[in-house]
């Protein structure tokens, strides 16, 4: 189970890496595509996008409008309900279709000459800017239908208008790099999970069990080895070892059908009672298991060696008891 999850995390991490890398490479350090300046052929006072031309949300867009000879110009992005009400009765150039990088379809719409009010006096623009010779706005498109408008301010018109457009993701380059790092982490984490799972499987195969508190009980591993005629060791399984052992026993049973005649036992030699072994005793193999010497200590503290027969005349004194007393 964990192996599958590990693979899933690894694949997800790899995808994140690829996506992040693509994002960073495509957007570049400024996090956006740029196009323009493009000339817009109009002598009117308003250029506006139709309500459904801007269909994206969450995208960072930047519009720069430039006019020659420092003519005042206004650029704004607002909810289409507001923008349409503002320019709806005015003669204008309406952008009916737009696709990146710069493919524009427009139409001339007839109407009144002047706008009902100065664009700079309105409070509903999502983003707006005005300037002499040029103005630009930069904003993230909200989750609502919006229109962009370029308006000549005062008594001027938009003759000689040039528009530059940029779009991208705010902080996209940094996010791409972050995504690469997250992906790398995912790959590493997935590998860890798979390795961990493999270790657990091995432990289960060898009967290794985890106790409740998480400690692992070590069990001695038994390895069966078979040594061939040339002295070379071969590791074999427990079953093979059992089969081999049974075969050896069978061979031994077949090799000794009758017991060999055993030699007569040699007569026992007397063991020296003095406790001192002679060379003859050693050669004869008559080494006693332990020679015992009995000693009598007189009143003056002088030791006298005695025989076992004389021992009954004396009261025995044990060394251990003396130590304890």
């Amino acid at each position, binding site marked *: 189970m964990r192996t599958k999850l590990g693979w899933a995390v690894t694949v997800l991490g790899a995808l994140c890496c690829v996506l992040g890398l693509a994002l960073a490479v495509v957007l570049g350090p400024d996090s956006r595509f740029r196009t323009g300046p493009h000339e817009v052929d109009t002598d009117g006072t308003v250029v506006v996008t139709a309500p459904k031309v801007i269909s994206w949300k969450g995208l960072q867009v930047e519009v720069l409008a430039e006019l020659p000879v420092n003519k005042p110009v206004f650029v704004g992005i607002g909810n289409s309900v507001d923008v349409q009400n503002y320019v709806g009765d005015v003669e204008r150039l309406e952008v009916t279709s737009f696709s990146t990088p710069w493919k524009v379809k427009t139409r001339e719409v007839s109407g009144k000459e002047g706008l009902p009010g100065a664009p700079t006096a309105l409070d509903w623009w999502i983003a707006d800017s005005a300037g002499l010779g040029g103005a630009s706005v930069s904003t993230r498109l909200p989750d609502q239908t919006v229109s962009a408008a370029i308006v000549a301010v005062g008594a001027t018109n938009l003759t000689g208008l040039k528009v530059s457009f940029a779009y991208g993701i*705010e902080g996209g380059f940094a*996010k791409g790099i972050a995504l690469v790092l997250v992906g790398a982490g995912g790959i590493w984490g997935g590998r860890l999970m798979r390795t961990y799972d493999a270790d657990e499987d091995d432990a289960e195969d060898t009967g290794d069990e985890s106790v409740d508190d998480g400690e692992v009980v070590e069990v001695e591993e038994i390895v069966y080895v078979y040594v061939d005629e040339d002295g070379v060791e071969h590791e074999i399984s427990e079953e093979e070892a059992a089969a081999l052992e049974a075969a050896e026993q069978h061979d031994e049973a077949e090799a000794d059908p009758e017991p060999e005649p055993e030699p007569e036992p040699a007569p026992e030699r007397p063991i020296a009672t003095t406790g001192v072994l002679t060379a003859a005793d050693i050669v004869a193999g008559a080494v006693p298991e332990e020679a015992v010497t009995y000693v009598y200590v007189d009143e003056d503290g002088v030791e006298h060696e005695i025989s076992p027969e004389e021992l009954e005349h004396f009261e025995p004194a044990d060394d251990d008891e003396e130590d304890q007393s």
Partner: protein
Amino acid sequence: MRRRLLVVSLAVVALLLSACAVPGERDDLTLRKKAADAGEVDAIFDRYREVRDAAIDLLDPKPLSTVETGAVLAIDSGSFEVSQRLSTTQRGLSRGLVVTHVETPAFSKYPLWFLATAYDPSAKVNRVQIFERESAVDPWLLVDAPQTLPEATLPEIRHGAHGAALVVKPDDGAGMSMSPQDAANAYAEVLADPTSAASGGIEQDDFIRQMRKAAETNGSLKGVTFTQTWAAEDVRHVLRTDDGGALVFVTLLRQDTYDVDDGVTVTWPAGSPQQAFLASGISTSGKLRYYHQVLLYVPGGDKKPRALGQYGGVVGADGV
């Protein structure tokens, strides 16, 4: 330990991914705008309080035209005129108004409007106000302001999928005993004539009783022929209530006409709005015009419409 590490790693990834606002194409390209968000409502009310208080301080209704329009401006201007003529002050500054509830519909075109209920501690009433923006270049103006008692409960407003309050077309009577516009017309008809055919479809509420009583008093004056007419203006602001009914903002124009016999003069008590407009009284004939803004509730089902509150006053007079 590794399990914890895994959980923490997944949480970090989830956080990072959620922090990235992923751009995408919008599925719904419908034209829609919520009339105003909370910040805009605050700004609109701040401006309204500021201008109204300035007008009260100056005892001059002119500044009010930048924050009010229509019948409510006429009523307030009439009230200021009465204060000027009687040399009295206007009651209560607007800075004490506390906005307690806002209902914001969404629109696909102008005009935009929203409802805001504000408690007025000086008058101890709730002002159920409608602010409207007629076009993209116009300011937000107060257009309706009926008042209810604090203990009066307004019906719950129904909301759409985007959390916006639902509006009802004035001529849409589905699920109700009559459409909002028909209810407004019937209500005006009953005010003008309690025995009219429409009286069976309208609840006889306190406002109707109070207006009828005043009309009967005026009509009982000896040597005076008194007539009173009521007319409902076009309904513009209607919200759908949770029970399938409608909360309707109705503006009614009332006109009191006095035809006085020779040798008789009609006068009003000192300090009254009528006396302020017609200081010397009416000795031949005269008219007093009033605006009343009524908050009408048309319940879902077959129940009769009834008024929940009103705000009105003298807006003009002429007579000799």
